């Protein structure tokens, strides 16, 4: 008998668990236990034994395993079909997925299949006293946050951006693995994956970086973008960007912070030529120390930082690099 009321999709591809599935498990445990609920990680795939144990070690009360040879490669229709059956049978109150390539697709399909609402790309989750799941999503251009919920349909679903919640700590195993029934036919797998290719992994550099130097539209040109990189290298930090430098081709897409809910939490963040629009600032609000360099004293980042320097970064950064180097010499 499955007891868990919150189910967390433990995304697996090629035998690897996605970190966001563990982050969500940790958050779900924090939400569920005060409410008297249990939490299950849900594994869908084939030959998943070891992964089940791993999920238990991160605190899952139950690991629900849907194992079938036809599920060895992800296909939205087959995965949604088996999960729909399990949901109808065991009636969880909440179903969470990572807002990854797979989770966004599966979540959407599954929500339509069981006719429920889904809060997409959340950067926060809350459980109300009436046990309603509220997903915090950045609204229109990120200038406000909206709390979105589906109070009248079940399960209440959400996808959550990777990196929003911390990884849970490993602990003594108290939960158990429960295999679920699977009813699947070959025709339920509706496309064939010919190839999966991992490209040169720029591995979540920003999410893991302790120091991030980010530039905004105020940098003005590709040539001056060099200053952002040089400051980052002087502080052994990663380079981040707001949307416009990415659109202008000064920075890479994977360096963008804040837009579509990407969140980072470095110890030190220095924003250069960044005005402080909400969608970017929401993405860095977990930083311990926020330093802003901007020549416009009215820029809104100067209300949202710890230390502010008003001036031309082309003058400030060379001085700053020199001062930093004086400590290492």
């Amino acid at each position, binding site marked *: 008998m499955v007891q868990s009321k919150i189910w967390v999709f433990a995304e697996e591809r090629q035998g690897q668990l996605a970190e966001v599935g563990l982050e969500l498990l940790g958050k779900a445990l924090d939400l569920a236990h005060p409410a008297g609920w249990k939490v299950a990680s849900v594994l869908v795939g084939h030959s998943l034994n070891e992964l089940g144990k791993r999920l238990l070690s991160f605190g899952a009360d139950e690991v629900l395993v849907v194992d079938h040879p036809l599920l060895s490669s992800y296909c939205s229709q087959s995965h949604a079909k088996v999960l729909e059956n399990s949901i109808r049978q065991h009636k969880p109150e909440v179903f969470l997925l990572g807002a990854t*390539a797979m989770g966004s697709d599966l979540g959407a399909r599954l929500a339509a299949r069981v006719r429920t*609402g889904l809060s997409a790309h959340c950067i926060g989750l809350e459980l109300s006293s009436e046990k309603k799941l509220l997903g915090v999503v950045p609204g*229109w251009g990120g200038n406000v946050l909206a*709390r979105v919920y589906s109070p009248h349909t079940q399960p209440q679903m959400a996808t959550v951006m990777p990196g929003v919640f911390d990884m849970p700590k490993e602990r003594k195993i108290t939960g158990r693995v429960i295999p679920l029934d699977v009813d699947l036919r070959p025709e339920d797998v509706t*496309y064939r*994956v*010919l190839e999966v290719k991992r490209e040169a992994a720029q591995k979540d550099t920003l999410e893991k970086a302790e120091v991030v130097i980010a530039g905004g539209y105020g940098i003005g040109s590709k040539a001056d973008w060099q200053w952002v990189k040089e400051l980052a290298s002087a502080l052994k930090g990663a380079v981040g960007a707001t949307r416009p430098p990415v659109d202008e081709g000064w920075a890479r897409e994977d360096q963008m912070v804040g837009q579509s809910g990407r969140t980072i939490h470095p110890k030190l963040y220095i924003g250069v030529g960044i005005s402080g629009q909400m969608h970017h600032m929401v993405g860095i609000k977990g930083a311990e120390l926020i330093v802003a360099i901007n020549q416009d004293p009215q820029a809104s980042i100067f209300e949202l930082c710890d*230390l*502010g320097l*008003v001036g031309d970064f082309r003058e400030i950064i060379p001085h700053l690099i020199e001062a930093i180097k004086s400590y290492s010499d």
Partner: protein
Amino acid sequence: MRLIVCLKPVPDPKHWSRLGLDPKTKTLIREGIPNIINPLDRKALEAALQLREKGGGEVVTLSMAPPSALSVLREGLAMGADRSILLSDLAFAGSDALATSYILATAIRKLVPYDLILCGDQTLDGGTSLVSAQVAEFLDIPNLMHVRSIEAQNSRALHVRSQIEHGYLVAEMSPPVVLSVVKEINEPRYITFMNILAAEKKEIQIWSSKDLSLSEPWVGLKGSPSQMADLVIPEMKRKVEMLKGEPSEMTKALAGRLHRLGYC
């Protein structure tokens, strides 16, 4: 081959500062703000036009929007779509992703036989990215998101490349399918004056709820399971300390702090 492209008119981001919220329904007030075709939907249309150029067929655009969106549909026709369908009815207002997908899917059913349904992976405004997979679910056909290339092998097989974390996968799919595209897929063509003139002669049909067999309750604000509970202004104010002086003085002070904290 019939290619259906879902085009969403979205408020031009250049005018977002003028957007308001209806305090009662908590939906967006977009009156007076010019619409553009959602940029990724424009790329989906370009992908459809390229497939038509290679394999022949018909490109139909489909939008659910108020009648004020007609200019956006004209733009789609000027790019090269053969005809346009606008789903417009007060009853559709306030639809969430599930309701929107249900209405679009019901309209698409009237367009059988269809081979490919294309749209953008994300819209600029709502940004839930749910609709493509949900339309596919209501139609009970396969879908793939994050698509960055589509190659027709023959009339029965497509090779579709889809972005995943740090890489991509290639899937072989048989039409009909729903694909949502990412920005890497192409650069949409420019529209010439001649294209605009030619578009004037093309047909725009307007369908209301009466034209669709909407047997399920998932229509409009009332039929939408997702609701906005409230808006939150993020609490982000910090104790701001402005460093004073010439650049050399400010930076010396900053580097001193960073040194004490162990960063240099």
